[in-house]
């Protein structure tokens, strides 16, 4: 979830060409020493007061990670990462017990990002959408570097039996749930970055929606990397019991720095019978400057398991930030008649690279999936859609539809489409379509002849190009995402 109040300001300053979320908060921070080894993992685990089983779990993941190497199949290029040259734990020194004790600097930070952490501010309409209208309250878990600093609206949610807290807290308060589900969708040794995350994850959000409950408000986590030379390794776990519904949003920003910072998150979703999880991301990590210096390496593993019959998991992502994005939010469609969706907009401008897509693994009968991907490349950006649709022999009557469209702005960027389609079931039907084009000259002229500047015309046409995806976002966030798209493309025209 990007800055709300600030968005207006940002739009106003479009011509200045700056990343508006790039400020740094002066706050006393406690670090683990640089480096990655068993001691550091023990340190993190001890800091969090974790039970023995979790420490063991982390150490096993670490062992697995040591035997793995970075995946190199994605169409992204970056110099080797020195995994020993980073802090794996950074937390504000003053740890609040309640919202009233949250460091005022932190409150200010989140307010500046448009995310009031005080519930009364939401209720008082402090949070406004870019149109100036007050927003419906959203429950927020705010993660600052390695720790969750506040979670709002908990009491109201607890009335419904909903658990929304940081994962560290969940480990302490609901160990049986965490132990049952952690790593059940993304195994600790699933891939290089997931193994790294499993070894060193520091915080993240935990959501549990009990049977039959429709979560009354949007849940949201706001991630902020602040400290230097740190990575962020959050872990999110969402469990939707039978017949429940939840819509969850995540947003992220980071200060502008010349160094690259690593963000390697793992998100696991579990949907039981007839449950629906809608997971939306507006990813706005610092993308680096116009020459490609700095920016976040966003290497993320997100996967949802549709375990129950008629369950549904829907991923929507708007990826505008990060120097490199490597992520494939996926669905394992196990329950019969379960549904997986992936709606994605990815923009790469300047020297950004994105290799993103999804996997739809059809295991159960009559499972259905839809993939809509819109890639926009500008500047020297490289944008790749990479996706897998696999239909197993038992997925009788399964259906997939995939549409991947790429838009190129300028002749120094690249747009790539790499779908894998594997069908082992006769009665399944898989359809894939992809197109690549640029903004047509006559479209631009038509808009300009109606009075729009070239930049506005491009913004409008790009938003139109992305409409099928943006309409999947909760409404207020869609408006922000639209503005963000335009900002991300700034300087790409003319």
């Amino acid at each position: 979830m990007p800055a709300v109040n600030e968005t207006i300001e940002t739009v106003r300053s479009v011509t200045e060409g700056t990343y508006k979320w790039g400020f740094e908060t002066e706050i006393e921070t406690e670090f683990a020493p640089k480096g990655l080894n068993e001691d550091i993992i023990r340190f993190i685990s001890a800091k969090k007061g974790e039970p023995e089983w979790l420490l063991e779990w982390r150490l096993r993941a670490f062992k697995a990670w040591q035997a793995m190497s970075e995946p190199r199949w994605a169409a992204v290029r970056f110099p080797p990462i020195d995994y020993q040259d980073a802090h794996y734990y950074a937390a504000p020194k003053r740890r609040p017990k309640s919202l009233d004790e949250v460091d005022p600097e932190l409150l200010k930070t989140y307010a500046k990002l448009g995310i009031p952490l005080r519930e009364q501010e939401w209720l008082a309409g402090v949070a406004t959408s870019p149109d100036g209208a007050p927003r419906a309250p959203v429950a927020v878990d705010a993660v600052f570097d390695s720790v969750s600093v506040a979670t709002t609206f908990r009491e109201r949610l607890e009335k419904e039996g909903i658990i929304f807290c940081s994962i560290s807290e969940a480990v302490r308060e609901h160990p049986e749930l965490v132990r049952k589900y952690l790593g059940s969708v993304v195994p600790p040794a699933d891939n290089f970055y997931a193994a790294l995350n499993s070894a060193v994850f520091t915080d993240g959000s935990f959501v549990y929606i009990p049977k039959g409950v429709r979560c009354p408000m949007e849940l949201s986590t706001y991630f902020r990397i602040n400290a230097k030379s740190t990575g962020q390794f959050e872990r999110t776990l969402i469990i939707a019991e039978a017949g429940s519904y939840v819509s969850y949003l995540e947003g992220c920003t980071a200060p502008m720095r010349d160094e690259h910072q690593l963000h390697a998150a793992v998100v696991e979703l579990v949907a039981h019978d007839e449950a629906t999880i809608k997971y939306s991301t507006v990813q706005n990590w610092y993308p680096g400057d116009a020459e490609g210096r700095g920016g976040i390496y966003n290497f993320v593993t997100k996967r949802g398991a549709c375990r129950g019959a008629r369950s549904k998991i829907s991923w929507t992502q708007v990826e505008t930030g990060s120097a490199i994005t490597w992520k494939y939010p996926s669905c394992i469609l196990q329950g019969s008649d379960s549904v997986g969706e992936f709606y994605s907009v990815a923009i790469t401008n300047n020297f950004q690279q994105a290799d993103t897509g999804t996997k739809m693994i059809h295991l159960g009968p009559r499972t259905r999936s839809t993939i809509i991907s819109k890639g926009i490349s500008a500047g020297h950006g490289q944008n790749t859609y990479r996706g897998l649709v696999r239909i197993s022999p038992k997925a009788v009557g399964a259906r997939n539809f995939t549409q991947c469209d790429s838009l190129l702005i300028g002749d120094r960027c690249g747009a790539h489409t790499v779908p894998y389609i594997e069908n082992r079931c006769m009665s399944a039907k898989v359809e894939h379509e992809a197109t690549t084009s640029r903004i047509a000259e006559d479209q631009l002229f038509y808009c300009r002849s109606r009075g729009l500047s070239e930049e506005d015309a491009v913004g409008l046409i790009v938003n139109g190009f992305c409409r099928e995806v943006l309409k999947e976002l909760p409404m207020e966030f869609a408006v922000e995402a639209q503005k963000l798209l335009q900002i991300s493309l700034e300087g790409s025209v003319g």
Partner: protein
Amino acid sequence: MLKIEGLTAEVEGKPILKGIDLTVPTGEVHAVMGPNGSGKSTLAYVLAGREGYAVTGGSVTWDGRDLLALEPEERAAAGLFLAFQYPVELPGVGNATFLRTALNAIRRARGEPELDAMQFLRLARERLRALSMPEEMLKRSVNVGFSGGEKKRNEILQMALLRPRLAVLDETDSGLDIDALRIVADGVNAMRGPDFTALVITHYQRLLDHIVPDRVHVLVDGRIVRSGGPELARELEREGYAALQAQAA
């Protein structure tokens, strides 16, 4: 006043306009007629500033201002509106969003306050009613899946909202049935007044029965070869362009 003097232009190196002189006093509606390939649409695009239509000589001024020096959006802000012969499709861009963005861009350029969503919707509904167009038209993507007639009506709707002072209508009548033609003509006639100037480009006289011009000019092979009153249009309808073409050749 629109003043075109000695205007020459080429497309892909090929001369199309070969010296056009034309003056439209403010408040008048003039028609430009001509056979296919005479340069009618080129004239429209040159006036609106389309890339690829290179002006090689002459001048165009609007109320004394050099129109050719302006970007397309600046011309729009200056009050120019081109109704396209082939309106462009913008997939995913809602008609309402498009119209509001355009209207506010122009209002901003003129130093007028922008309209918020509610104000705009009120205005748009009012204009739609005036043009007997369904409100559903605002929800659809710009021109996508519109019939030929709907596209033309959408152009007139845009004109009614943006309220230009100088409109260039490029074969707005082509592909219209008689009912749509009347709606389009009514839309234009409703705009007429001492502050509204228009250049109606057409192949046929038909439209001019509904939008009666003050003057008619005949364009053949990139030049105005004849000018006259509204009766000239009827004469052309009777006798065709052949004689004038032979004369010009």
